[in-house]
């Protein structure tokens, strides 16, 4: 049987959803693989939701919003872009193909463009093949990574950073200084790496308590880096030492504060 991708699409109420309606009104044909979720604004689509959809085994996620400058909510789409960027960074970390994601702008007048987009994205996903997380035997290792990415996306730090990005990079910071995209990206890159790694460790420890060495081997992270994350996680109260086995402290997860 031929591979039929499962694609989830988030469409903003004001432009993209209307554009999709227009495609219908215009009877423009496109593949059936897309399942649409209507949201009022593309800016509502948070990285954690996208990541959980991917974890559930969807083959692709598409987000569409108003063109830049056209947003019904002034600049919700700019936030959508920032959030998408974070999602993409996190997906990249997991090793899942970033081609399974797409963000596009579709206006209420672009029925054809919407249909073309669906065609194109479906084809793209078809080429990528089924998600390793789909079906009855998902890649469990990858699944843990995606879950870590999702948890990272849910955390305050990344949510806060992405929430502040647009305003700060555009209007300058609270000191009235200019903050370049490069500067912000540098912080984002570091923060994504940190948060993702910490959740990787945390999830691995939820599966089974382990030592720095074991975690290092299991996660393919340098042991020094693992220890540094463990230090931070202990500070947060997420993990603690369960016992000392030989010369290795064995860490275990604690209940995570909300």
């Amino acid at each position, binding site marked *: 049987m031929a591979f039929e991708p499962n694609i989830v699409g988030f469409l903003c109420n004001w432009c993209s959803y209307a554009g999709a309606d227009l495609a219908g009104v215009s009877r423009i044909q496109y593949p059936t693989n897309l399942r649409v979720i209507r949201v009022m604004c593309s800016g509502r689509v948070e990285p954690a939701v996208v990541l959980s959809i991917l974890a559930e085994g969807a083959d692709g996620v598409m987000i569409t919003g108003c063109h830049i400058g056209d947003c019904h909510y002034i600049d919700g789409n700019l936030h959508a872009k920032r959030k998408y960027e974070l999602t993409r960074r996190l997906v990249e970390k997991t090793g899942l193909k970033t081609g399974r994601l797409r963000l596009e702008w579709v206006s209420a007048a672009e029925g054809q463009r919407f249909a073309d987009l669906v065609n194109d994205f479906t084809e793209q996903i078809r080429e990528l093949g089924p998600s390793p997380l789909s079906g009855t035997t998902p890649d469990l290792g990858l699944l843990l990574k995606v879950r870590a990415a999702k948890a990272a996306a849910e955390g305050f730090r990344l949510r806060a950073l992405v929430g*502040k990005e647009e305003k700060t990079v555009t209007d300058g910071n*609270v000191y009235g200084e200019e903050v370049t995209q490069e500067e912000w990206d540098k*912080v984002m890159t570091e923060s994504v790496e940190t948060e993702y790694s910490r959740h990787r460790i945390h999830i691995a420890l939820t599966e089974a308590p382990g030592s720095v*060495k074991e975690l290092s081997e299991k996660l393919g992270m340098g042991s020094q880096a693992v*220890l540094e994350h463990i230090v931070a996680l202990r500070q947060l109260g997420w993990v603690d030492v369960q016992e000392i086995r030989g*010369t290795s402290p064995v860490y275990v997860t604690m209940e995570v504060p909300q």
Partner: protein
Amino acid sequence: MRKVGAVMVVGGGIAGIQASLDLADSGFKVYLVEKEPSIGGVMTQLDKTFPTNDCAMCILAPKLVGAGRHPNIELVPYSELKKVEGEEGDFKVTLNRKAMRVDPEKCTGCGDCAQKCPVSAIDKYNEGLGERKGIFILYSQAVPLVFAIDKEKCLGCGICAEVCKAEAIRYDEEDTEVEVEVGSIILAPGFEEFDPRIVTEYGYGRYPNVVTSIEFERILSATGPYRGTVLRPSDGELPRKVAFLQCVGSRDDRVGNPYCSGVCCMYAIKEAVIAEEHNPGLEPTIFFMDIRAFGKEFDDYYARAEEERGVRFIRCRVSHTDQEPDSKDLYVTYVEDGEVKKERFDMVVLSVGMNPPADADKLADIMGFELNDYGFAKTGLFTPLETTRPGVYVCGAFASPKDIPDSVAQASGAAAKAGRAIASQRGTLITSAEYPAERDISGEEPRVGVFVCHCGINIGGVVDVPEVVEYARALPGVAYVERNLYTCSQDTQESIKEKILENSLNRVVVASCTPRTHEPMFRATLQEAGLNPYLFEMANIRDQCSWVHMHQPEAATEKAKDLVRMAVAKARLIQPLKKPRIDVTPAALVIGGGLSGMTAALELADQGIETHLVEKEDELGGNLRRIKFVLGGEDPQAKLGELVGRVKGHENIRVHIGTRVEDIQGYIGNFETTLLSKAGEEAVKHGVVILATGGVEYQPSEYLYGEDDGVMTQLELEEKLVEGFSPDTVVMIQCVGSRCEERPYCSRICCNDAVKNALKVKEANPCSEVFVLYKDMRTYGFNEDYYRKAAKEGVLFIRYDDEHKPEVTNDGGLRVRVLDPVLNEDIVIEPDALVLSAGVLPALDNQRLAGLLKVPLSKDGFFLEAHMKLRPLDFATDGVFLCGMAHGPKAIDESISQACGAAARAMTILSKETLETEGAIARVNEDLCSGCRMCEGVCEFNAVEMVEQDGEVHSHILEELCKGCGVCAATCPSGAITAGHFTDGEILAQVRAALTEVSR
């Protein structure tokens, strides 16, 4: 000339804090300037301290809080000097106060901002082993407890302002210039740890498991990155074998630090011992050149480390370390017994030395004082506290590398100097709180007001505060309850006062954080509302509830209710207490007329205090009379003459020579002493006692001393050398009468004396041969220069140990036979002079004086201070101080520092007409007292005296001396003693309240 009654202290480490406290307590306004946002300095980073293994933060925190809350100390954090104008007595200082961007008046230190800050930065407090946020406090007990924004790291995202419920964030704050007028300046900027990246052969910065000693302190610390378990930074494994490499950045000419840092031997031993305590089975090895355990009871600590704690000591300088790339294990290469060895270790700790502070040049430039060759403040042997600019004083590591007690003593000394220069202005710039008259609440039923704090979300985010409020409302005796976003904020204080008056409250309970930091403030609020400050109780529902049960909100709420119920139960019973006031006799008694005693007397007399200086001999001067020359070229006899002249001519000093202290009665502020001389008995009244009884040179019984004229002590040699004695061959034997079984302590001064005399011999006769037979050369600090000079000039230093002591014989000529450990064979020397470095013994009279004053002696016979680390000049008995060799062997500059320090400590009492002491103290019900004296035995402060009345002996508490510990009350078999504010009734009420709901 105008003088200003204020002092600026630059540097908020332990030395700066001590100097500030001493000055502020003796009537001067103090500006304590610190470059970081919080005071505390390096000591806050230490895990434990030698030789007592006290937790550093536990002993430091009270001083931090004391300085932070002192009405006469203004903290000027996050600030640097910019300009100093004027002269001694009248300086105008311009400071650059860096923007913290947080309003210190509004910030409650709750930490919500840091929790939400998305930016991470390197945690300097944890030496980069952990991370902190873009908005931060240096460490969790920081004083002042005000967050600061790290502008370098801050993205300017604005989140902290959004989450700060106290509205304390000020993004628009700029650096500001602050001008202050002060009469004296004290420099206490501390030191910079040596950066071992320069010493590339040890691999620091390249090998993750090579760490510095200060990093290792953080690793050892329970508040550190690894929570006190020693882990390898490369893989988080527990190390088994840990090597400590000494003298990294010390005694090393290549890196420009030929001096000895003086502290590393001891801290390495401490770290080794503590590491093994934290990780049982850990095997520490210390690679050293000399173990310089020269301080009080240090050698004991060293011996215990080696004999009882299994620390392995290897005498050698390590050539290099290598890393095994996969395991990240380290291989240490060293030479032992002439053989090159390579040994594997899991971790290597570099004992890094002390550099001068990074901004020393700038400081010197701005202030206009000179630095020495190594960038530390230049001082003199007889002027250890003065910089080259009049009115600018120095203390702590910036004067020369030193440990904590020496820094603290010197800080007090600098305070004396700074205060003396402006003594006429004492009391002109200080403020004292004025409170309304206290309302008499006797006969009133308890009306308790309960104030429950949300602490932003710190409490409210876990504990259901409204529920606690409702619960408190129903408790017996409670007349009023409210909740506050921050109960500690300034506006809440106003509201508490109003509520006290509106509701006729006569007890107040605050359920918030810890009384350790906040009780004094709330008590002051009560006083402002006309209530006795003791009518206050706290329930700690944050530090001990919400913060520790973050994931159990329901249980935490129940616990908070319990804590409030307990506090209310106690509050209903607490009573107003009076703080006793005692009059102070503005006079001092200094016992001992040597260098220390004379110096202390002069410091006090110059500040207008009538001082009795008692010397048992017929002449002033003590040991200094026998010192004919010193390292560095100053003339000790000229200095002595000057000193004696000033003492004898001073209008405020009465010199009692040939006099013995027969008896001392009384207590702080009110002593009465009987002096006995040939002229008969004389009684003198005084407010304080300073013990400066000195020490005496040991009279050797070994090495043919007293049998052969060629054998002499160092002091005897010194006397001969000035008379022109010029021997061709000299052998000096170190540690005669010190570091032996009978006297295990190090006499501290003998290595320097030997080097001094060896150089003198060489100077007179460059062809002479001088051999110094030693165990460890302990020329700590800058005196290392002279040791190197001596070696360069051909003085031969030969090490011996207890198993191979030198043998001295005389069969027609002195012969010394000693094993040369380098050649591993005996060598025989036939000297003209055999000089014994005889140790320092405590003064003979110490025992008797200790009995008279009821103060303790150490097992070596020197006086034992109140606390070896932070109270080096005090006794537990108030009003009695010590300095100089009475405390232990020490050098001239150290004795002067201590003597000035003791004077400063004394001035904290003598500057006041009356003293207010603790109100929550013990009281005796004489009818119940059986006169058994058990209370007298348990009191550490000599606050219990037995009095006879109507033929019956009963106990009497000296209110002035009682600290309120309650031990006597808990000991008294007759139930005759009540511990104020912690009565049996009050405690039982709390206990019952704690158990009621549990058993429900």
